[in-house]
């Protein structure tokens, strides 16, 4: 009996969440696992071999390989998108009114876009410090 309760509840778009948003969240999930693994392997094993990236100079040197800012930017976009759609899903459970939901959605979009722009700027700034 309890088995059927768990089995019947499968992740699905919440009321107020479009199928597209839900799908993006579901697809960025496994993508994140892959990119996070890359992020980790790169940061902790390719940085300075033994100690990771524990100084400013380490990080700058590490960012001279163009694949590194590329991985970081891909990770940034994926993780910000996934986390903010997820956060919106949690907020939807408070059953906000339509106008409030609209404000929440816009705030999250602004936060997301600002974070991604800032992150890309930061990655490129760090990469340019070595040259």
């Amino acid at each position, binding site marked *: 009996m309890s088995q059927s309760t768990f089995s019947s509840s499968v*992740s699905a778009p919440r009321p107020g969440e479009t199928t597209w948003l839900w799908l993006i969240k579901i697809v960025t999930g496994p993508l994140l696992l892959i990119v996070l693994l890359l992020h980790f392997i790169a940061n902790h094993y390719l940085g300075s071999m033994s100690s990771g990236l524990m100084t400013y100079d380490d990080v700058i040197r590490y960012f001279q390989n163009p694949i590194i800012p590329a991985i970081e930017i891909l990770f940034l976009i994926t993780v910000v998108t996934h986390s903010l759609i997820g*956060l919106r899903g949690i907020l939807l459970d408070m059953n906000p009114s339509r106008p409030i939901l609209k404000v929440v959605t816009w705030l999250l979009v602004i936060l997301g876009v600002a974070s991604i722009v800032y992150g890309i700027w930061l990655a490129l700034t760090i990469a340019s410090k070595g040259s």
Partner: protein
Amino acid sequence: MNTTRNQPSARKFWSWFIPIGRQVGGWAFALNRITALGLTLYLFLHLIVLGLLAQGPGAYDKFLVLTENPFIKLGEWLVVVAAILHGLNGIRIVLTSFGVGVVRQRQLFYGFMIVAVFAILIFTARMY
């Protein structure tokens, strides 16, 4: 479709975080949600802290001294543990979203959580 069941409300909102007395699916849901909030908080802190890199070596290296602090280390440990739990539980959610293992959710959840415990133990041993 039964639309009267499972309707969200502000009152019910908080009860999602306390799965006591609920079935294993409720625990899985709460685990996913709590780790999600923790990881989101960490993400934005992480982005802010990395901003120190733009200010030059002094600011960043001075901040990194904090990573020796046992409380900060515990915080970092929590982030990795949350990521392991959220990621593995998330695989179950993705699989069942696409119709894989829907009637075996409980087993999938337990299976992934056993993997998570091993991953956490290995990580803890490597970190400390």
